[in-house]
């Protein structure tokens, strides 16, 4: 990998990161919103390093690659030796003693590690596959959602007359961990996407909860009863009432909480796909 390719890979990588953070909200498909400034900074640094490398290349058009390598080696010998001692172009360990180094002057020091070509893969994935937010495929398994990591024992009481919109995580928390059963008889509105169930009489309104990035996403599911199932992966707003389990003895986290729906409305995908 010569200096030009190294710099180009960095320009592409930095550019792709800035493309999904500054020019769109695509990054929300992959990480939490709070990550935005760090991603912008990282993309800018990578892009700047790449551009600085390119400028340096273009300023030396009168030197061939081999001459440039030779000259830079002569000028900054000990520094380049440091690089040499660490890696050769295959990423393998190289050990030079002083004697070997004396014979090593013709080696092209501008070569970077070959493994760096792999950095093109995320760039290709971002532009060619354009990965969407995790959906029904990631939430497909029939196992119930795990307990939401943070549940509070003190939930504010809900309004009697109006419909309360709440995150699915809060709904599950109230259904499982609330000693006052504040959900009983109250109408609530949940927003999520449609995941089918193996059981005939229900489907799941689902939202994926992220803690850091999409690799640690946990699907939070609420079973919707008495409503026809919209197409899989449709985003919906479900209005309905919690079904209190017949027995308190079912341990939390074994069965998804249930909701009898009075209204199911399809909505466009929210900008922030995760909870």
């Amino acid at each position, binding site marked *: 990998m010569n200096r030009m390719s190294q710099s180009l890979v960095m320009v592409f990588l930095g550019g792709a990161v800035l493309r999904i953070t500054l020019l769109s909200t695509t990054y929300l498909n992959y990480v939490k919103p709070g990550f935005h400034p760090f991603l912008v900074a990282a993309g800018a640094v990578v892009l700047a390093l790449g551009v600085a490398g390119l400028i340096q290349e273009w300023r030396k058009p009168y030197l061939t690659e081999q001459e440039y390598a030779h000259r830079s080696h002569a000028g900054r010998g000990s*520094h380049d*030796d*440091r690089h040499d001692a660490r890696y050769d172009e295959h990423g393998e360990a190289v050990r030079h003693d002083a004697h070997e180094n004396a014979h090593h002057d013709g080696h092209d020091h501008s070569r970077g590690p070959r493994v760096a070509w792999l950095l093109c893969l995320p760039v290709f994935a971002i532009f*060619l*596959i354009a990965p969407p937010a995790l959906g029904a495929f990631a939430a497909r398994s029939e196992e119930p959602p795990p307990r939401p*990591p943070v549940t509070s024992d003190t939930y504010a009481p809900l309004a009697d007359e109006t419909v309360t919109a709440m995150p699915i995580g809060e709904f599950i928390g109230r259904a499982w961990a609330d000693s006052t059963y504040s959900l009983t008889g109250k109408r609530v509105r949940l927003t999520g996407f449609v995941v089918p169930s193996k059981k005939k009489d229900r489907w799941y309104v689902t939202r994926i909860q992220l803690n850091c*990035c*999409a690799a640690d996403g946990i699907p939070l599911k609420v079973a919707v009863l008495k409503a026809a199932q919209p197409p899989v992966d449709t985003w919906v707003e479900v209005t309905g009432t919690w079904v209190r389990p017949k027995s308190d003895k079912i341990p939390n986290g074994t069965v998804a909480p249930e909701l009898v729906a009075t209204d199911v409305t399809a909505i466009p995908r929210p900008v922030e796909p995760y909870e």
Partner: protein
Amino acid sequence: MPWIFAAVVVLLIAGHFVLTPLLAFPSLQTWATIFVAISVQALPFLVFGVLLSAAITAFVPASFWTRALPRHPYAAVPVAGAAGAVLPGCECASVPVASGLMARGVTPAAALAFLLASPAINPVVVVATAVAFPGQPMMAVARFVASLVVAVLVGWLWLRFGRSDWLRVPARTAPAGSRWQAFREAAQHDLLHAGGFLVVGALTAATLNVVVPRSLLTTVADVPVLSVVVLALLAVLLSICSEADAFVAASLTAFSPTARLAFLVVGPMVDLKLIALQMGTFGRAFAARFVPVTFVLAVLVSVAVGGLLL
């Protein structure tokens, strides 16, 4: 060269409109989302670590480290491990920093203790752990203690049994050219190198994440010893950033606290993307010995600390 640049840009933009609709399989998309997520999420930490490492190489004189650390190597290991508490970052940042420390003459064993400890015991991770386990403050304490103990033990083991030809120690010459030039070149080289191996790890982790169903794991949750080993292996496979793994551990409610502690101790020290990074940075001979020893010690210490504190 500029026309190659232009050609790739045109290809990417054209491909975006032509290929994307053809590649819309849910399984491929889910895989790609997780792959891109791991890569994108690790990038700021990697850049931070690489810049810090390049700064250490280019601007901090080697004499600083000999003065800052105890001269006796056995004493330097715990000091370097505890010093990991001040670097707020995850494991992606610690590999280039440890390599930069070695390049500046820090005893490899001490740099390794720092490498293992810093992703698990820094304030950000400790707070995240405490938040993820409300009402169980001992979990954060146990994680801190167990991680530091493992890091120091591995450092001492390396000091006692390690051979220098296993480890690709970066050479110790100071840069002779302009410092900024040295800084830029060191940063670019390390970023490309570590970034390439990060992609290897992200590819593996995303594949396993999609292929291995998590329900397979919960079936063994009740078996005492096996559950600890299974969660330790899960930590290796999932390769979750150490700043987020506590939330995942908290969601694995079927498992015992000790098994979840093993998940939290192993994850920042041994995982797929980290193995790829270490292999690339320190060499295969090193990773082949360092990774299994660290894994076994991390599991044993977690069981011991979990038995005492949880």
